[in-house]
């Protein structure tokens, strides 16, 4: 693993867009610089409206940008591509495909023959704990299962970087805790490079190797908090007494709260 060459690089990225109704120019991001190294999980927190979802959409290639440069494996991002997989906040798996066909969709797009595909698909179904649900349709799954299916679908397409946009925001608190622990286990098993966007400080501290705190609009990179806890030790039952975790969480929380009050005063 080469720690020196980053997988994802963002340099001097700024973004303005016209408001859909008033036409005023909205300043969403200001001079963002960041680097994601192989196998690293970086979480991004910030007050709502700080542009963190805008950043993700730019990296996914779904939103054109013109100030600054963003690249993956040295290739400048100009549009969506299979090197960047996205896990969306909403349930983005297709209702008209079964769990297995949703998970294998990326491979199907790449025209990989069905026989080869099935083995990989089954591995990912097992990895996210959906064994036995292969032939179910999404409406037959719970909210948490749908998000697991989405994570498996994104991983199965084997992207260089996985971008996650508040993926656990819409599930209940119990399920969220389970999903966070599972994502930690999956990150350990697959060694994927992951950018994880969230508004929940606990989640950011629990999952991130580093946590980037964004300022209120226009979003700037305000602070980077390192969380030095080995992945295998990250279980919620231990975190409440883990000094490193508590210190990191409190630091992130204080930093975010400052920004929230700025946002409210404005």
């Amino acid at each position: 693993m080469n720690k020196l060459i980053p997988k994802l690089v963002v340099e001097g990225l700024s973004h303005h867009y016209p408001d859909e109704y008033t036409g005023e120019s909205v300043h969403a991001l200001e001079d963002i610089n960041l680097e994601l190294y192989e196998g690293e999980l970086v979480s991004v927190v910030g007050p709502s409206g700080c542009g963190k979802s805008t950043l993700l959409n730019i990296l996914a290639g779904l939103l054109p940008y013109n100030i600054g440069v963003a690249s993956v494996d040295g290739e400048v991002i100009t549009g969506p591509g299979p090197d960047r997989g996205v896990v969306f906040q909403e349930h983005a798996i297709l209702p008209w495909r079964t769990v297995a066909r949703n998970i294998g969709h990326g491979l199907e797009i790449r025209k990989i023959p069905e026989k080869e595909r099935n083995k990989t698909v089954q591995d990912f179904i097992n990895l996210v704990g959906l064994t036995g649900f292969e032939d179910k349709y999404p409406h037959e799954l719970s909210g948490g299962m749908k998000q697991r299916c989405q994570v498996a679908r994104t991983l199965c397409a084997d992207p260089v970087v996985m971008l996650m946009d508040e993926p656990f925001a819409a599930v209940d608190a119990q399920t969220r805790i389970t999903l966070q622990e599972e994502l930690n286990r999956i990150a350990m098993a697959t060694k994927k490079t992951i950018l994880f966007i969230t508004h929940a400080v606990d989640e950011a501290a629990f999952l991130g190797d580093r946590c980037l705190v964004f300022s209120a609009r226009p979003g700037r990179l305000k602070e980077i908090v390192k969380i030095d806890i080995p992945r295998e030790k990250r279980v919620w039952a231990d975190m409440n007494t883990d000094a490193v975790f508590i210190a990191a969480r409190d630091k992130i929380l204080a930093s975010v709260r400052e920004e929230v009050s700025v946002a409210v005063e404005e």
Partner: protein
Amino acid sequence: MGARSKMMVFSRLSVALQRRFGRQRLRKIILGSIPFLFFITIWHANTVFGWLPPVFVPTIGEVWEAIFFLQEDCPGFVPLIKLDNDCMMTTHILSSLGRVILATVIGLPAGIALGVVAGMSRPISKFLEPVGVFANSISGIAWIPLAIVWFGVGWVTTLFIMLNTIFWLMFFNSMLGVRSIAKVYEDSILTMGGSRWDVVTQVYLPGAMPSIITGMRMSMGFGWRALIAAEMIGGDSGLGFMIFTSAAEFKIEEVFLGVIIMAIIFMGTDKFLLAPLEKWTVERWGLVWKPS
């Protein structure tokens, strides 16, 4: 047989029927047939009590016999499917059905294709939508006089009227169907490296299915009605032509027969084509509310 054993027979029959069809379906069949049985009873009562003269309302027997009267000169199965004009009833049924099938085969894919394109592209929808609104505002049958002038009486006119009705209905329903799909599905295909074509076949078409099926239902309803009207005025065969000419000759039992055949064909297409299609697509995918 005593009252008690009669009850026994009845309850055994009821249990057997419930086993055969299932409780829910049996209830549906029974409840659904009640209005028809009521209607048939009133019809027969009319014959018995003579409320309305037979010139207006024929007897059930006369309508049944009309089938054999119309098919009287039919020499057999082969001329029947060759549309030999001596097999009067089947010829009219087949020519109506032929138009329905032809109009569907052309109009359905064309309407869906253009509707999907208009649904995904703003410029194309700006280009096509006003024409669509214009064409849709003129009811299908209003085209009949013009169609007769253009194409004369016969197949082309009747086909044109039905095609015109089906095409615009499918166009609008497919367009609205595509527009109602959540953008995240499209984004998810693109971020997995999918092409525009992948988005069309894997997101737009299945995603617009609820709307497309509604369009098919409306097409069947409005298209069938327009066809019957077109056959009456601008046709030289078909069920609409048959009831129109029979009425002119005061063969009221043939008019009744024609109307009943139309209703049966229409109900048949819904039950054996549209309902199964709905069940295996949008209902299976959880996209529509399913009655319990």
